[in-house]
Structures are given as structure tokens and as C-alpha cells.
């Protein structure tokens, strides 16, 4: 078996392999380090951090669905100060690659977060989660409108400086994903993270009420993989030079390869970690085997392969 160059690039940054955790599905890495060395995977994408500490939503916060689950956490977290004080140093100490996910309730908040992060050592990229409700605009999600999506990415770009790549994380719940993708690329995003969860709901037929305290929640897991593949394919077709961090229902090396063939330069593992704490590690190994079996010597040759004529 010949050797494989398994590294990948997002903007100016190189990662030793393309398997990352997904934001909100690995906390800040500490809990998973019991199950595999964090340096084994390409990067840890941290849970979306906000300016202030957040309590999040009431419980129940989750409901299992066929081949998937709903969650409604409400971005619970410690706030950027505590995060920078505790979580980042720990990750740096582990020598893990870190992508910090940020979330805000207003365009300004994103700017503030970017400023706080611009000179923090040990961070490889910023993932900008714009699938959050904009409190200044009737709670409409930033990622659902090209203008608000643009505003957020511009604010981050202005505040981050030239060093850190910006990855804009988009919502699949839009009529025209290519339009939103184009807008954030124009606004300065170096890469895209596709896809966030789909908006869903489960009603408990015993109580006859919505199962989640927050009523609606985000649908993730293998159920949504075909939607993720479609969106990655469409966006890669439109913007072949913009790296995509793909995610949505990846639970095996085969699944990761599917997203890569569609156009992903890296793959985040989310919900699968809940079923298997070592999921990201196992998927990385399975993907490596698969690529070698198929005769790839450079991982990057596989990116978007499904687009090429036969």
C-alpha cells in the first residue's frame, strides 16, 4: 500500500488530515480525550461560543428521530472570557488543532468575538455560525438572508485581520443555498461549513405536545446526509475554489468519502460521536483505508471527484 498525503487546507491553514469534530458535538475536546488522542484528528471545532455566558434552553433538549435526532440547546456556554481562559489553553497544551466556532445575537457581537480572537495563539481558523436568530431582526436567522449573512461575515473580516481563515457555517433551510454561499464568499469568507441542522419538530403522542421544551430543534444525523451531499455538491459546483468543511450525518469513512467526492475539503463529525465516542478517530482511519484502496495518493485529488466527467 503506497503512502497517502492525507493533509488538507482551509484558506492559509494546513491540517494533518481532513476529519474534524463538529461544533457543539465535542464541547471543547476535553471529554473526548478520554477516548482518543485529539492530535489524531485534523481539528477540534469547538462549540459555538458567544460573548456572554448563556444558560441555554429548558429540557427536554433532545428527541431521537428515525436515523437522526433533534436538539435544542440554545447555545449554552461559558462566554468568551472563560472560554479563552480555560478551554483554549487546555487545547493548546494538548497540541490539538483548534477551530473556534463563534455565534452572536447581533452583527456587532460577531465583530466583538472576532476582535477577541484575532491574536489568540493556537487557533487555526474561525467558524462563524450564522445559523443563529438575529435578535435585532425578529429573530430571523442570519444565514437565511444574503444581506444579514454578508453583514456578519464583513464584521468578522474587519475585526479578525488577515491571519485567521474565516469559515462561514450556513443553514440548509434556505431556498437558494448557492446565493447565500456566494454572498458570504464575496463578504470575505475563506471557506464554508455545510450544513448546519435542519429545523424540525417532534410531537410526543402521549402528552400530545411538542417533545422539546423549545418546541422546534435542529435535525442532525444520517437522516440528513442526502441533504448535506446535495448542498455540498451544488455549492462546490458553483464555487470550486472555496474549501468546504462538510458535515451532516457522517458516521463512517464511507460517509465521509461521500461528502468529499461531493466537494468537501474536510469533514466534521457531529452526531455520530454520541453513538460512538471514538467516531471521529474511527472515521479518520476508515477514510484513510478507503482512499488508499481506491488508489489515491493525495487526499486532495478526491475532493469533488464526483463532478469530474467519466
Amino acid at each position, binding site marked *: 500500500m503506497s503512502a497517502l498525503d492525507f493533509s488538507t487546507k482551509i484558506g492559509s491553514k494546513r491540517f494533518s488530515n481532513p476529519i474534524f469534530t463538529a461544533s457543539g458535538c465535542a464541547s471543547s475536546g476535553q471529554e473526548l480525550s478520554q477516548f482518543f488522542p485529539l492530535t489524531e484528528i485534523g481539528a477540534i471545532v469547538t462549540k459555538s461560543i458567544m460573548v456572554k455566558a448563556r444558560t441555554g434552553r429548558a429540557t427536554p433538549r433532545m428527541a431521537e428521530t428515525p*436515523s437522526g435526532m433533534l436538539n435544542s440547546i440554545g447555545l449554552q456556554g461559558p462566554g468568551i472570557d472563560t472560554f479563552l481562559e480555560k478551554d483554549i489553553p487546555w487545547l493548546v497544551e494538548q497540541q490539538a488543532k483548534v477551530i473556534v466556532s463563534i455565534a452572536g445575537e447581533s452583527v456587532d457581537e460577531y465583530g466583538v468575538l472576532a476582535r477577541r480572537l484575532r491574536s489568540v495563539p493556537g487557533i487555526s481558523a474561525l467558524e462563524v455560525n450564522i445559523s443563529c436568530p438575529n435578535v435585532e431582526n425578529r429573530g430571523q436567522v442570519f444565514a437565511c438572508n444574503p444581506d444579514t449573512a454578508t453583514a456578519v461575515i464583513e464584521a468578522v473580516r474587519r475585526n479578525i485581520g488577515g491571519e485567521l481563515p474565516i469559515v462561514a457555517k450556513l443553514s440548509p433551510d434556505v431556498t437558494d443555498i448557492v446565493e447565500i454561499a456566494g454572498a458570504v464568499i464575496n463578504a470575505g469568507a475563506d471557506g464554508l461549513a455545510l450544513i448546519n441542522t435542519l429545523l424540525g419538530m417532534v410531537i410526543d403522542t402521549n402528552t400530545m405536545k411538542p417533545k422539546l421544551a423549545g418546541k422546534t430543534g435542529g435535525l442532525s444525523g444520517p437522516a440528513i446526509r442526502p441533504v448535506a451531499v446535495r448542498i455540498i455538491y451544488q455549492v462546490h459546483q458553483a464555487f470550486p475554489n472555496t474549501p468546504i468543511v462538510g458535515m451532516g450525518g457522517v458516521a463512517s469513512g464511507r460517509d465521509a468519502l461521500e461528502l468529499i467526492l461531493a466537494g468537501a475539503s474536510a469533514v466534521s463529525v457531529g452526531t455520530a460521536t*454520541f453513538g*460512538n465516542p471514538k467516531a471521529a478517530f474511527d472515521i479518520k482511519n476508515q477514510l484513510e483505508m478507503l482512499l488508499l484502496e481506491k488508489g489515491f495518493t493525495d487526499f486532495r485529488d478526491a475532493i469533488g471527484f464526483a463532478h469530474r466527467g467519466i
Partner: protein
Amino acid sequence: MISGKINQFASQISAEVISNKKVGPYHHMVFAVGDMAIHSKPGNFVAISVGGEQSSQILRRAFAIYRALDKGPMGGSIELVVAPSGQGSKWLCQRSIGEAVDFVGPLGTAFGIPTVNANAMLIGGGYGSAPLFALAELLKNKGCRVDMVLGASTANKIYAPLEGKRSVSSLTLTTDDGSTGIHGQISEAIPRLIREYGTEVIYSCGPMGMLAAVDKIAQEFNLVHQCAVEESMACGIGVCMTCVIPIKHEDGIKMVRSCIEGPVMDGSQIIWDRKAVMDGL
């Protein structure tokens, strides 16, 4: 109650079913788990994959460890008491001897053991009695007085195996329908028993409603109350934030993960009133 590295003894293993017996409406199941048994303490739980390879059920199910033996004829073993309620637990109850099931454990906090002798009351509702028997043994070996109170809606839903009763000084049963023991909800019987036995510390496990009622009494009597909570868990290992329990905090409410800072928590810290939580968020 967390100390050292999170879940530092947790691992993922394939556990073989070595016994599966129906006991009333429950299944008492024994699994060969090797070294996983060594660090399993009363209060800890395991998280189990359900439904087989092509399952549409992608999340693990949590089960309190009923008993862990680190050296048995089959090596280390862990015993569970499973109520076949939904599809996942039914699947588990249907496993035959020799089949393998995927375990992650031991997870979460364990019951804290008093450093000095104390009169302990152990209160369990339904399969909530499961982790209390091993706890009783531990407490008894420490020299504590152990009074156990088990309740359920009806007689056969009380899980109280003979061998489990060895370690208790007294065992009181209650049923909502009066089919055995004291007629009524478990919480109604407790104040009198606390006085009778001179209870100094309460341990409880069972439905959240029962835990809330027990905590109210514990606070009235000013007793330490350690309870094992049960909230829906997606990951069981602290990364998803779905399993949170509201606790009191200087700025109002703090949500802590019941899979990491629980399932055994200090009852007096928990905000039991759902309305207060909803208003506080």
C-alpha cells in the same frame, strides 16, 4: 462530585450477555465486561447502543449499574435492571445469552459515602432501586445503618431481589394501589420513617417527580440528600449538553450536565420547580 479527569475510567467495549432473566416486569441482565467492572461504583451508569448494526436508533441508552463484580467466573461483570419500555430497552431485553452489546462506561458520578457512620435511608422508585442495593452493601460495610424504602405504582413493579435485602436494616415497601406494603406514594411514608430510624442522610433514585418530593422532605428535615437524576441524554459523555439539570447559582440558574456532574447530585442544589426554571431562562 467530579474529581480528576472526566470519566477517567470510561472505555468502550463489546459486552457479552451472560444472563438475562425476567423478574416481574423487568429484566435482570448480566454482561461480561472485563476490567470495566473494576472502577464501577454505585451511582455510575453505562451507555448502550441499541437496535443492531442497521438500527435507525442512533443514540445510546443509559442504564444504572445494579451491581459490578470485578472477579466472577466470567471475569468482570456488570448487572443491569432493564424495564422494557420503548423500542431501545425492548431490544436490549430481547438479547440472548452469547450476544454482544456495545457498552460505554462506567460514566457519571457515584453516590458519596459518609466519612463517619450515619443512619442512611435509601429511597427507590420502580427500577430506581437498581443502584441502591450495591450502595446499601457499601454503606453497611462502612458500618452505617441502612433503611431502604422502595415504592412503585403496584406490587410487581417493585424491584427488590432477595439477595439485595441482605444489607439493609429495614425494608419498607409502598405502592400507589396498595397491592403491597404501605398504600400511597412513597413520599407520604417517608417523614414518619425518618423520625423512626433517625435518618441522617438520604439517597434516592427514581422518577424526577419522586426525587422532587423526597428532596422537599429532606430539606424540611435538613438532611443531606443525594439523588440520582434521570434526564434525556444524547451522548452520555458530556459533549452534547442535552442532559442538563437546573441548579441554583448566584446569577440565577445554572444548567449542569447530569451525565458528568450527575447522575448523582446534591438534591438541595437542584431547582425542582419547573415553572421557576422556565421563568428564569
